[in-house]
């Protein structure tokens, strides 16, 4: 009912803070868990491999929105008294770990086989082999795709709005509810997303080009 003033804009920026925080939580949680997924996916144990490929198929094959709903309501059913934060953090971690796990599996497999054999021949154990030899190389290979997914994740946090989380999009909805100018508000919200995501996208594709050249 009012114009969009400083207060409203600050409120949207408050939402931005949560958006960034959610993305970071998703990325860190998904990253840590994603490494485990990637390792399990490349494990020699068939059962572990099949189980993780099921996990990946599940989280890549269902909408993030539904994952948020199911975790949000499901966690409460388990009798764990959690706030929206934890539910959303869990959902983003699961979602991100499936995607990052799959990206990193690809890059682990892209590390030349000889590296693994050389590490084996030196008597290195699994943990050292992965930590010291394979993963550093794999993570470098995966950088463009990883950054690409980070952009997706930042945009994906907008769905947390639907379970009532006041991040950027939700803040926009609230302001548009109060000012009745959804177009202007969502224009601003869209612009803010663009300002965060665009440089990241460019970093990612820049890295990709540089690596493509290095291979040639």
């Amino acid at each position, binding site marked *: *009912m009012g114009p969009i003033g400083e*207060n*409203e804009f*600050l*409120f949207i920026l*408050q939402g931005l803070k949560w958006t960034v925080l959610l993305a970071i939580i998703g990325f860190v949680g998904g990253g840590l868990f994603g490494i485990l997924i990637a390792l399990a996916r490349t494990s020699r144990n068939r059962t572990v491999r099949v189980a993780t490929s099921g996990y990946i198929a599940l989280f890549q094959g269902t909408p993030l929105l539904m994952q948020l709903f199911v975790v949000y*309501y499901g966690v*409460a*059913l388990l009798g764990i*008294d959690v*706030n929206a934060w934890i539910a959303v953090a869990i959902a983003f971690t699961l979602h991100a770990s499936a995607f990052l796990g799959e990206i990193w599996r690809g890059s682990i497999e892209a590390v030349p086989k000889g590296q693994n054999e050389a590490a084996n021949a030196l008597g290195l154990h699994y943990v050292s082999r992965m930590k010291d030899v394979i993963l550093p190389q794999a993570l470098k290979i995966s950088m463009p795709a990883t950054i690409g997914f980070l952009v997706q994740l930042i945009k994906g946090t907008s769905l947390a709005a*639907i*379970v*009532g989380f*006041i991040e950027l999009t*939700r803040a926009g*909805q*609230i*302001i*548009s*509810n*109060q000012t*009745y100018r*959804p177009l202007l508000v969502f224009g601003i919200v869209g612009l803010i997303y663009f300002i965060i995501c665009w440089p990241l996208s460019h970093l990612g594709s820049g890295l990709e080009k540089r690596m493509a050249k290095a291979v040639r």
Partner: protein
Amino acid sequence: ATVEEIKAKGTLVVGIQGDNAPWGFVNTSGKQDGFDADIATLFAKELGVKVEFQPLAVANRIPALTTGKVDILFATMAMTEERAKSIQYSKPYAANTISLYAAKADAVKAPADVAGWEIGVPKSSSQDKAVTDAVGSTATIRRFDDDAATIQALISGQVRAVGGNQFYGQRLDAASAGTYESKIDFLKTYNGVGTRLGEKDWNEAANSFIDKIKASGELATITKKWMGIDLPTFPESIPNIPFTVK
């Protein structure tokens, strides 16, 4: 948790709407505000505890209560038979009129006149239920995430009418003065405090609180402050919606 446990804990978690001004909304400084927030704050004071608000989306209100995420709902819950099967209502403490809003230029007198129209409502709200019951079989109902989207849909011409509450007139005027008006009143609903089924202590605490603020005039003051209207008269009973735990 029981009332006594909450008193011991010292904090009451209230489920409330976060984006439904003036009922319950998070204001621009990030604080919970609105009619329900004022009432709930009074209630917490009555219990002698601090209040903590949990803003909920329309569809999450009942699950949040039944799964124990919140202790009590001051969440603009219109009292319906359906919902009374899932939660325990108190006596009503607010009233709401649900009507059809459309352009002045459109001649609408009765539900039959909107046959074939597209009508917008906020998803899972009492408007949704009222409009669906009244004209759902002849008109197309479009369900949006919230009031803002619903009103925007009418202004953008995406729907020809919307099911709204008493505040819609004011908001539509703000967006486009003199264009829209209220056409048909579908129903008057009353809001009650929501507690979990069978939990007598909560229900009694809510009811005696409502009696007290009615008598003291505090309810009237808050109603005037937020709605700009005098305190409506509330019915003593509503069929199939018990106000007390039996």
